[in-house]
């Protein structure tokens, strides 16, 4: 790896621009990765290691990596971080960068589509299961409410997500 200050500056300003304001505070102690369920599940480019790559200026090199989509947003990293980096914000900033470059992981596209179509990012048809236990088949949520659905779609279409042209 060559140390290219232009690339480092670009990576840092991209992440800060997308909300990862604390990235330069990182001292690479690794506490975030110690508690990260994503790292434990094998997504190695999360938290400490993601920040290291970004601080190396390797923004474009890792754009296709799917680790960032393994973040469960539990925020334990933020709790244990001794320097106030808020690593989850860095992960999310990197995701926003990826999304803007249309570098989605397939797993995340499914949830975007779910969100657009049902108002739920994680969705499974509940009707049969509910019927089995004697509950009304449909839930009082956006999934079965066309007015709510169209409002959600209007919101998405008018947000940066809409500009990606996925829907």
């Amino acid at each position: 790896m060559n140390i290219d200050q232009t690339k480092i500056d670009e990576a840092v300003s991209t992440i800060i621009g997308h909300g990862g304001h604390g990235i330069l505070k990182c001292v690479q102690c690794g506490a975030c990765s110690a508690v990260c369920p994503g790292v434990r599940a094998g997504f190695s480019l999360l938290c400490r290691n993601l920040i290291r790559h970004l601080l190396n200026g390797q923004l474009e090199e890792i754009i296709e990596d799917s680790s960032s989509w393994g973040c469960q947003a539990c925020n334990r990293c933020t709790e244990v971080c001794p320097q106030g980096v808020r690593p989850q914000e860095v992960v999310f900033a990197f995701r926003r960068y990826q999304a803007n470059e249309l570098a989605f992981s397939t797993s995340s596209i499914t949830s975007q589509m779910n969100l657009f179509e049902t108002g739920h990012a994680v969705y499974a048809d509940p009707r049969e299961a509910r019927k089995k236990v004697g509950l009304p088949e449909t839930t009082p949520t956006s999934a079965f409410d066309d007015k709510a659905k169209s409002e959600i779609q209007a919101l998405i279409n008018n947000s940066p997500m809409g500009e990606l042209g996925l829907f």
Partner: protein
Amino acid sequence: MAKVGVYVCHCGSNIAGVIDVAAVRDFAETLPDVVIARKDLFMCSDSGQEMVKQDVRNGVVDRVVVAACTPRTHEPIFRAAIEKAGLNKYLFEMANIRDQGSWVHGHDHEGATEKAKKIVASAVGKARNLEPLEDKFVPVTDAALVIGAGIGGISAALALANMGHKTYLVEKRPSIGGVMAQLDKTFPTNDCSACILTPMMVEAYNHPNIETMTYAEVDDVEGYIGNFKAKIRHKQTYIDWSKCTGCGDCASKCPSKTPDEFNAGLSDRRAAYIMFPQAVPKKAVVDIEHCINCAGREIGTLPKINEKTGRPILAPCERACQAEAINRSIAHNPDGTIREIEIGSIVVATGYQVMDKGWFKEMAPASPNVITALQLERIISATGPTEGKLLRPSDKEKPHTITFVSCMGSRDEHFHTYCSRFCCMYMIKQARLIKEKYPDMVINMHFIDVRAAGKGYDEYYTGARKMGINFFKGKVGGLEMLPADKLRVLAYDMESATSIEYESDLVVLATAVELPPDATALAQKLGLQFCGSHFFRELHPKLGPVETATEGLFLAGCCQGPKDIPDTVAQAKGAAAAAAMPLAQGRVKIEPIISEVYSEMCSGCGICVPLCPYHAISMKTIADRPRAQIEMSACKGCGVCTSACPSGAIVLHGYEESQIFAQIAALTA
């Protein structure tokens, strides 16, 4: 007419990198009474000073303005230079165009240059009005006070005493020794802590020039360098120390238990106790807060009489004491006794505490098998609760896997942003001592990075690797309590970028070094300031590491910042040398920049008396009425009285009205 010389300093690029020094010099030349203006790369250098001296010697100038850095460090240098050249040294004024100019306006070269001109004009305005002043001298009391008797305080006291100065050594606990007395062995040579400390404790206690006062605290200090008066409160021991033989019988009979501070809370001591077996002095005290007043008899009341025998029914401690040192019938004063001492200088060596594990909620503090490193130190110490056997607290079983966690509360913006400096080394030491004794023990050490800067330290660390101790780079994120008193360690290996998860039997936290809470009250009594890390502030981080802003008051050891034993001893000896200076000289200089009352103008209103922070002003009847008078040696020249006096009767030499108004006029021109 004054003949003012102005000398503008580049300070390398410190000033000249921002300020147009030539322009400032050209401007200075145009100011009234300025006869010469020069510039130099470093005014404080030999050649820079020589330039000023030449102009003084040749009679070119009789007032000197140096536009450079801060008077805090450099005013004494230039004052000495002009004095050497034959000019009264108080005919000098410094214009601080670095701290107030180039350093704070680095982005605005033009503005900084304009500001520097104003600062120089103001200094010249003052210099034109300066009057010569004379230093005054007062005799000193040839004695020193050392507060705190850990390894720092003991080292300082011994150094002072060996230089021939009477030294009072004050310690709040019943015994001297400090934290070092609690340690097992010491890095990087594995000397037994007790073996090297105890002889020093005895030497200090028996030294003809040292008077040790244990179980005592500083109540109040007043005065100034050379002539301090301190009130030392001997806390109430409830045991007659002139009779106590240190046998410990009272402690063995006392029924009241409380956590033993010396064993870091891992065992109990009694309310009547001797601090530890090697205590110096080896004397018992009754900790009245935890005394349960056996048989409902308050201290200071007479015992009941046994109806059958006609003898008094004594408390267990009284009955146990063969030396008759315990008499609970006496109405002991709970506040103890106050002793006043006079000293010429003071060394503060009050030490530190380590943070409690309770602060770290993610580290399973509820588990008895999560301990601080100081607690481990007691466990592996032969004088500790397990007599040196490595047994974990929950079940007194030998652990198989031990985990060391670094940087708990250090390098952490939630607690302390500084590095506690000696945790890496003591953890490695503890790991090595355990591995030597139990080679099969699995020892995992987790560091952000290993800080082993010191003589022989890195070799000590690499040696630990060779012994088979496991090192991991990466901070531990959390611990989870598991059945059978085990702990799940959530860690991370930075080098391979993989998470680590395993079960451990005992987890040791290297918790941060910090000042104990009672340090704040002491700081108020002594006039000490705190630094950003909440340790006592030294005069200068590089050039005044043992001095403080108060002359005659010095610092040693961890109260000034975290440091290990070698550094503490070195600083303590430095502080002792500094504290001995006024004592050795026999007199101290009083700077003439102090206030004086023109008594013919004083109306005797007395407003100034309560305002003086140094109690330097009193009312004395002069001619027909009481008038204010200032004790020269107590005045610090703060100027509060001068600005408050409604009659304008008090002058602060060096900051006289004509001088200050000239400065204001120049700044607002």
